[in-house]
């Protein structure tokens, strides 16, 4: 049991948690800035970036693809802003125009290149492949101390882990500036904070988290984790610090519960095959959000926690 768990389930679980936390942290701020759908847009435009990265280098290697994805995300943000200003179009529609067109371009490129067969395919991009990230050298819990075995870890794990640590560190360092510029941009500017740069930096961090998570777990989790845990956390508390803490808890809970339900749920019901872990993680995060929307203490507008019987 221990060996199977370490070999098959531990890496996907840890990767899932890292991806969830890395997305949920910037998600909190995006949610409060009414930019929640940026995550949605980014995770769509990552596809053409990855395909272009593949076409340019001709190999299915991680770094060119991730660079391509990051470039595509940046291009999308710039395009959305340009179209919004040039055409005086409301942001939602500008976003819709850009990300659908870029996604369509990505699918077309994918079909045109012979990449479809290799490792790149649209389904993979959408649902990711969390279950396949196994650790063949993980012979047991002791392998965690074994340098030789650790080298066999799936490469996605250190990557998304590093991104998560980076996101956590950035959030901690920039905390005051982020909070102030999110809640009161005018006040932040009078303090001399570069609010434009902070906003852009936030979107950039979100893009990096999305690209790294996308590489490991596919785009559904990315969108779900950007929005659901922070939204549920928003319904639990009025304090920013607590909201972020709740969102991390919810993100971890979704990742663990979702993975376990997808991996072991069918076995309990007597079936052999596992279900899509990425889809299940998104579903669990939605269930958590649903519960928070029904029973969360701060679910109503106006701020004050709901007293019993009030409203």
């Amino acid at each position: 049991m221990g060996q199977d768990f370490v070999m098959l389930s531990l890496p996907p679980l840890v990767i899932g948690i890292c991806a969830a936390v890395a997305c949920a942290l910037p998600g909190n701020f995006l949610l409060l800035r009414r930019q929640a759908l940026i995550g949605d847009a980014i995770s769509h435009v990552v596809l053409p970036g990855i395909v272009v990265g593949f076409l340019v280098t001709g190999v299915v290697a991680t770094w060119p693809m991730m660079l391509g994805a990051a470039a595509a995300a940046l291009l999308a943000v710039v395009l959305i802003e340009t179209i919004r200003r040039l055409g005086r179009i409301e942001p939602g529609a500008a976003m819709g125009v850009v990300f659908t067109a870029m996604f369509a371009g990505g699918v077309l490129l994918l079909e045109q290149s012979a990449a479809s067969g290799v490792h790149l395919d649209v389904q993979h991009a959408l649902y990711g492949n969390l279950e396949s990230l196994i650790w063949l050298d993980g012979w047991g819990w002791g392998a965690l101390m074994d340098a030789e075995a650790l080298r066999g870890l799936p490469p996605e794990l250190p990557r998304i882990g590093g991104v998560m640590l980076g996101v956590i560190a950035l959030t901690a360092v920039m905390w005051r500036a982020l909070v102030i510029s999110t809640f009161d941009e005018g006040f932040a500017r009078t303090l001399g904070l570069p609010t434009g740069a902070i906003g852009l930096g936030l979107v950039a961090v979100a893009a990096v988290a999305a690209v790294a998570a996308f590489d490991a777990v596919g785009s559904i989790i990315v969108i779900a984790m950007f929005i659901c845990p922070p939204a549920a956390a928003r319904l639990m508390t009025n304090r920013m610090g607590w909201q972020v803490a709740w969102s991390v808890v919810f993100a971890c809970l979704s990742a663990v519960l979702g993975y376990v339900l997808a991996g072991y749920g069918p076995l309990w019901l007597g079936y052999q095959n596992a279900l899509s872990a990425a889809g299940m993680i998104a579903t669990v995060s939605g269930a958590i959000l649903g519960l928070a929307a029904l029973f969360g203490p701060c679910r109503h507008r106006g701020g004050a926690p709901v007293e019993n019987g009030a409203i």
Partner: protein
Amino acid sequence: MLWEALSLQLGYNATLVTLGAMMLGVAAGSTGTFLYLSKRALVSDAISHATLPGVVLAFMAMVALGGDGRFLPGLMLGSAVSAGAGLLAVTWMAARTRLAEDAAIGAVLSVFFGFGVVLLTVVQVMSAGRQAGLETFLLGATAGMLWGEAVVIALGGALVLGLVVLLRRPMALVAFDPGYAAGQGMRLRTVELAMMGLALAITVVGLKIVGLVLIVALLIIPPVAARFWSERVGVVVAIAGFFGGIAGYAGAAISATAPALPTGPIIVLMAFALFLLSLLLAPGRGVLAATLRHLRFQRRVHLRQGLLALAGGQPVYEPLTLRLMRRAGLVRADGVATETGRAMAARARLDERRWQMLRSDPAFEAAAARYDGLTPLEEVLTADQIAALDRGLGPEGIV
């Protein structure tokens, strides 16, 4: 090859798909206009992603009942039910909790889609590895479309279009001014629900051709493109329908010419090309028109300032001003004013002095508000009024 495709000579199946896609595009473009005008374009993204669980559940139900499982009307019914649930979830969350609509949209689209993916793997487990082919609903697939399916799609599109024509007035009113619409005794929620219901219908109808990830593009891009061309709702709706139709028709035709040209993405890219054309070329709101307008304005300002400088006997150093004045024949190459230049400068100075006079007189308050340093006073006042004004100018004013 392309010409044959565009003129519907590429065989029965391609013709079916092309006409169906055109009908779908027309209906989607005109429906989407109302969503765009009420600034809720992305709600359709939530609706379209929320169709996935319904498609899969309908498939499972039909298989469990011993049917084929791929019967299109059945799948459409299932997708409509789950998209409706998604729509209600978005509306409820935005209305009853403190979450903003965009968060509700993102939450619903990702969770429903994730749940649909889980169900897809359930289907794989149930059918023990046999491909159900439901993945084609993600990105659309037109190869091997049946006659009956094409008819369902075209009829669905026509029906939605008819409803849009019927409901255009209330929907436009609610999109522009919900408060006024409510004051007129209109039931806001009903109209909004109808608007969203039509978008839902488009999504369901378009699933087969464009796929659920990209159908939202047909609801958003043509209206955004059409908005550049007109300021009137009826015209924008018509142009959006026209653009949608072109995108659907040309996209489906082009995609029929080669195997590696998937229908949905090509249709979306056609729509995007129309959007780019509109963004650049549309009169009034287009980028080109705006640039020309800006340049013309810049020229007027430079010329006026140059003339005033000439009249005041000051030298002009600004290179653009000098160039413009030389080109207009107002100054010679060495910067000295020509005959015309002196005459124009005097007139500009007189005009400026009249304006100053006018602005210091409270009786002309309304006219003074039109002062922008460019408009000649003759366009604002009558000759008699100017003559009256001139009497106050004194000897220095008459040059």
